[in-house]
């Protein structure tokens, strides 16, 4: 096992990783920019190194400074968290060259997974279901038109190197296909420095379903059920839950086994997530694989009683997974709300500022993953996540009620600071959300309805 792990991240995930290290008896090293000198993880970790100014490019993304901090402190492994350098094969390679273990997949595997076309190709070969469409990049307008004719409109044109909802265009009319093909390629080139695109069927209202897995270096792989993350706004997840109410136990086992087999087939090691779209007829289609621990991992932990970060660290150290598939039993239902410093009434604009009041909820089966405390300043330099509020209950309805109770306890205030708490409360009270029939277009519709209602009563 590692002696000392450096955490190349900030905020709640840095603290989450440091907590896992402490429980495993591993020393932790926090790195921080000057904006984060007073952060919770700097206080909690065994050591801390100031690595740069607030701008991430010169601190959390600055590889020489991170490696330097690891060498200064003698860390034998680096946990990248999510975001920042977590999916950078180049960084993983440098770690390896410097004799430091990167806690994640091997660089060549990361590279395969990061390229959406390659990932789709490999997963298709491994037996995972794909949406009708191409696996290889589409190189001409004629080719794109042929594919659209074959699978039927609407189709979606996606940048191979895309992500985060950028570099994709939905084509509804055959006449617009040519211009949209060209503009998507141009955007892809401009944003991702790679003009390659592919075409596949567009599902208007799917469920976002993702399978959590961890693989070790001994050929072991375990899936930890799935999460439903359909409550999202512009591809930013707001509420996540586990399990999905739309999967039968048979579907769950089938897709879980396929996901693990797919991961093992490419030599994947560490924690990862396979994202799928699920249509109204119960068809799952592989979208992409995320080669990192994800923000919403706690909901899977809550229903499986497994500490995914600890498993991740364990397998990176060359040990076997501490659980077998048979031992992973899904229990009850978990929900997570992302409490962001954003103003839901102003297009979710970030509202940085000092938290005068910060009183997190407590009580039974209530978990708060956060780096915040009274007096902490939510910085404009980084993401606006204040806390992840996670609850567990024996079933979905009780989990929703518990979440409502916990949200009502959560006190956050500060000059200019707004949070997404009221928005979450309104969604949780919504009849359609409570029914469970929530697809990826739910938030958009919900907001449109609220606007209409406000106009009618206003």
């Amino acid at each position, binding site marked *: 096992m590692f002696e000392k792990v450096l955490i190349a991240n900030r905020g709640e995930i840095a603290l989450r990783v440091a907590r896992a290290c402490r429980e495993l008896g591993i020393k932790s090293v926090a790195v921080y920019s000057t904006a984060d000198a007073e952060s919770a993880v700097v206080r909690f970790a065994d050591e801390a*190194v100031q690595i740069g100014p607030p701008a991430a490019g010169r*601190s959390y993304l600055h590889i*020489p*400074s991170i490696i330097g901090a690891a*060498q200064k402190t003698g860390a034998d492994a680096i946990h990248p968290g999510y975001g920042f350098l977590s999916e950078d094969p180049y960084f993983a390679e440098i770690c390896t060259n*410097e004799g430091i273990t990167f806690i994640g997949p091997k660089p060549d595997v990361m590279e395969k997974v990061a390229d959406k076309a390659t990932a789709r190709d490999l997963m298709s070969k491994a037996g995972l279901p794909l949406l009708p469409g191409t696996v290889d990049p589409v190189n001409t307008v004629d080719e794109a038109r042929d594919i659209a004719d074959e699978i039927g409109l609407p189709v979606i044109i996606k940048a191979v190197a895309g992500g985060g909802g950028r570099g994709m265009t939905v084509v509804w009319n055959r006449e617009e296909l040519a211009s949209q093909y060209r503009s998507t390629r141009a955007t892809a080139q401009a944003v991702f420095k790679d003009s390659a695109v592919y075409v596949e069927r567009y599902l208007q209202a799917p469920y976002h379903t993702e399978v959590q897995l961890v693989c070790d270096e001994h050929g072991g792989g375990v899936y930890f059920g799935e999460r439903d993350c359909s409550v999202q706004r512009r591809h930013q997840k707001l509420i996540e839950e586990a399990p999905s109410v739309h999967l039968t136990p048979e579907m769950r086992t089938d897709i879980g086994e396929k996901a693990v087999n797919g991961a093992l087939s490419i030599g994947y090691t560490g924690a990862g997530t396979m994202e799928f779209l699920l249509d109204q007829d119960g068809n799952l289609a592989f979208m992409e694989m995320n080669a990192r621990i994800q923000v919403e991992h706690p909901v899977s932990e809550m229903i499986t009683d497994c500490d995914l970060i600890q498993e991740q660290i364990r397998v990176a150290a060359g040990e076997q997974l501490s659980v077998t598939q048979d031992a992973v039993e899904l229990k009850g239902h978990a929900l997570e709300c992302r409490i962001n410093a954003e103003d839901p009434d102003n297009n979710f604009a970030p509202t940085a*500022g000092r938290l005068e009041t910060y009183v997190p909820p407590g009580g039974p089966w209530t978990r708060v993953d956060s780096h915040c405390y009274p007096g902490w300043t939510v*910085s404009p*330099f980084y993401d606006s996540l204040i806390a992840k509020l996670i609850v567990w209950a024996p079933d979905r309805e009780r989990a929703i009620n518990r979440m409502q109770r916990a949200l009502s306890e959560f006190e956050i205030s500060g000059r200019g600071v707004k949070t997404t708490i009221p928005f979450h409360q309104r969604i949780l009270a919504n009849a359609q959300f409570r029914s469970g029939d929530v697809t990826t277009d739910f938030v958009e519709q919900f907001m449109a309805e609220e606007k209409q209602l406000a106009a009618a009563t206003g």
Partner: protein
Amino acid sequence: MSESETSTNPDQEFIRSVWEEARDLIKRLEGSTVQRFSVEAGGTKIEIERAAAGASAPGAGQPVAAASMPAATAEEIAASDDRHPILAPLVGTFYGASQPGAKPFVEEGDFVDEGQTVAIVEAMKLMNHVKAGRSGRVSEILCKDGDWVEFEQPIMYLEATGE
């Protein structure tokens, strides 16, 4: 404290020497965590009280501004006297000379010009030259070859000259 004008006072010399002593003490406390210091000799007593570290963090209710984010930096600390710290530009290893055995870039007591290389901070085999932000006399070098430094860690002090 204010420097009183002393013209014909017979105790002029004495006051000046006490003042010099106090100034020296303040300087020596720089960077330490000492908040209160008191020394008594004969009928003379010097008491020094310093602000707690971090006391210059953003005030309550202040809107967030980039510049006000970091806690007290070395620059802010050093601003209390006439010394100017030269800070490490990144995390890395400090070297005072271009190669082992070579003449150091600067030594204590040397005068440097603005823009002159005073040290190297090595990060992943890249030699980053650290340059003096202003001219002055090197009053103290805080690191020795091979020391690991953090971002903005003071590596030496300059004393202003000719002002």
